[in-house]
């Protein structure tokens, strides 16, 4: 196990380096520059700005210096768009926000989703099943960019219970709506995957054997059926977790949370090179970690899988 983890970490480093290089090249070939606006500035002014940020150096030198600073000093450089901030600042401010609502949404989606899927499978073709399936289909066809405005309309404008946006230092009332908006469609997916996987397991020979032995129903489901049924769910949860905690542009856009998803998209549109790279590396590192965790969980759940 330890050897496996170390091996995976050793592969992760070159993966991240390749990610940096590819992002860097893509950024450089995209037209435009971080300092262009509707108003063109005189060349002398632009030259000064480029010199200030080292953009006048050859591209390879910029890349080498960037990688050096990231690896040895953990410094992602200054943001070109927010001229009074560093990329470290932007990540330090935005990531905790995103992580907070993302983690809550992840917890809610996976716990409720799995529970709903299990119940629907066990009580197949009952009204409970129909209700659960009906709910998941409904939740899935309403994307979060539709869900978010509906939530605000109902809970902010009509009922006046919750604020329609802002973060307010993570006050619970500001967290609720983003969590619901982000969680619902994932929840529906998780419930659907759990249900079909559970149904497959429940129809397998060893479950029939367990039942034939006279084991009580709850023991059959929890002890024998649930674990294998969760395998496909877990492989789905890995990337979902990363997707959720690194932020959703839609959630950030509608709820003005100050999260990192909006910063990521903005930096790409404004060619804020250093911020794009910083957030890309963060996302890459999180994805690699999440995949590793999924693999470990797999081995833990299914002893047939050797690491």
């Amino acid at each position, binding site marked *: 196990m330890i050897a496996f983890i170390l091996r995976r970490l050793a592969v992760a480093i070159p993966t991240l380096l390749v990610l940096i290089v590819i992002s860097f090249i893509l950024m450089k070939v995209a037209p435009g520059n971080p300092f262009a606006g509707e108003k063109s500035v005189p060349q002398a002014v632009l030259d000064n700005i480029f010199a200030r940020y080292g953009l006048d150096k050859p591209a390879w030198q910029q890349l080498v210096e960037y990688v050096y600073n990231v690896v040895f000093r953990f410094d992602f450089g200054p943001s070109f768009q927010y*001229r009074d901030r560093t990329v470290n600042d932007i990540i330090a401010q935005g990531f905790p926000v995103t992580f907070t609502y993302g983690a809550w949404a992840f917890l809610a989606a996976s716990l409720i989703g799995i529970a709903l899927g299990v119940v629907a499978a066990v009580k197949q073709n009952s009204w409970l099943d129909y209700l659960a399936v009906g709910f998941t289909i409904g939740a899935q066809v309403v994307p979060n960019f539709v869900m978010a405005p509906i939530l605000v309309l109902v809970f902010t404008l009509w009922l006046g219970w919750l604020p329609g946006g802002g973060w307010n230092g993570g006050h619970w009332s500001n967290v609720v709506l983003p969590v619901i908006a982000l969680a619902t469609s994932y929840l529906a997916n998780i419930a659907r995957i759990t249900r079909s996987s559970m149904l497959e397991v429940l129809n397998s020979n060893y479950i029939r054997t367990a039942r034939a032995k006279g084991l009580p129903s709850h023991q059959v489901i929890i002890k024998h059926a649930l674990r294998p049924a969760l395998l496909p769910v877990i492989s789905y949860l890995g990337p979902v977790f990363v997707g959720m905690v690194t932020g959703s542009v839609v959630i950030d856009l*509608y709820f003005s949370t100050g999260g990192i998803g909006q910063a990521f998209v903005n930096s790409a549109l404004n060619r804020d090179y250093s911020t794009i790279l910083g957030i890309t590396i963060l996302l890459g590192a999180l994805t690699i970690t999440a995949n590793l965790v999924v693999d470990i969980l797999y081995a833990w759940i299914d002893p047939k899988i050797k690491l």
Partner: protein
Amino acid sequence: MKNQNLIAAFGLAALLASSALSTGALAAQVPEGTTLAAEQVFKYRVLDNINALDPQIVEDVETSSVVRSLFEGLYNSGADGNPVPGVAESHTVNEDNTVYTFKIRDTAKWSNGDPVTAGDFVYAWQRAVDPATASNYAYFVGLVGVVNADDIVAGTKTPDQLGVKAIDDKTLEVTLSFSSPWFVRSLSHATLFPAPKAVVEQFGIEWTKPENIVGNGAYVLTENTPGERVVAKRNPNYWDNEHTVIEEVQWLTINDENQGLTRWRAGEVDQTDVPAGQYPALKAELPDNTYSVPQFCTYYFSVNMTDKQPNEGLKDVKVREALNLAIDRDVIVNGVLQGGQTPAFSFAHPLTAGYTMPEIPASTMTQADRDAKAVELMTEAGYGKDKPLTINYIYNTSEAHKKIATVVSQMWKEKLGVNMSLADMEFQTLLDTRHSKTYELARNAWCGDYNEASTFISLHDSKSEQNDQGYANADVDKWLAEAKLASDPNPLYAQVEQQVATDVAIMPIYFYAKVFMQSSNVKGWPFDDVEQNWYAKDMYKVAE
């Protein structure tokens, strides 16, 4: 995203001599007998684009509204856009308008209690042009005429050679490279605000963080969370603090206009923009809260006038004229935009101070006449429905731009048989394509930087950085040079506009309007300022 609102907040109004300036400083003008609201918090909706709160770095209109609250220049812009004294109590100017001497008021203080001195302005202005600061707006100091500014930006002179000096702590002298009767109007622009040298040097780029910042405006920064909100509270050290009513200002980021409207209805913001196309309905529903005021910008199509123009048809002035005439502006402003915009046939905004908009021939014709003339010109040029012209038009991705492009392509198709292909692209890509002159026809827009017509008309200069058309006409360049020295530049401006209209280097479409909702208890908004430079210190909220 950087939007077309990249106007720097700028002093403005009638281009009259400085003697016309009012002498009393402006503050919240609360009529006697008014019952003020218990909670004096003004909440203003912004897009996610609040950048550096550094006066010498700031470049966009919304961040400028924050910077104007945290810092104060020599003059502010008043309710009607005319300059009113800020840090400066008064000023004198020499006979040919080249040397300005400002008297700084004794009561002006920084938020840490230190007095504001002439040296703070000298430091800030030198900082603005210093290549080490690398400010996008460095060129602004040269634009308004301060001696040596351009050379310092270009690196051929040093910042200490800038034409600004402190005679003593309370007297500032500015020397200009050309005669400028409107110089005082530029002083409410953030680039020319003072900066606290000790704080800037101590904290570097982090000096504008809430825990470090020292300002001299009516408010002090208490929170700055990008993407969420900026909060500023009343500054007890501000020289005119006794007249401030609003206790706290919040700039709330709401990127989506419909979400902004919902939150405005829920009472979470005091002011928000009206989503495109909803103005007529909202005006009918909430007539007292829905406003449309002229905005200092012009929407137009740029024609590539260089030899790189790949479209032979567009090289023919008759074709350009025909296309220009066939655009029915009334349909665009009344049918598509529906927010109080006005049709444009020339470039400079009609409400520019001291400017008389020339009568462009096309503007006085009926649309039927224009269409008939357009068909005639197109036929003369050898094009028609049997031999259609094909045009490639580019614009940056946006629903509003797409609607306009679609409507215009329909007009051209029906009237002139023109096949127009539309290509949308990212804003940065559009900027690049326009700048490199590798397009045929492109969307464009311009917002005035200061309230004098040269802020628009000088774009027709062949040397202008903003001349995306690559339009070069020796007469136009000559008239623009003469206008700088003329006591009344209007006839020259009119000549330039007429010439550009004749050459059809641009196709003006409409003049902008700012369309917004405002809570009815908010008072003191500068509706009469075409640049909408608002100051929370001049506002107040009444009890309802």
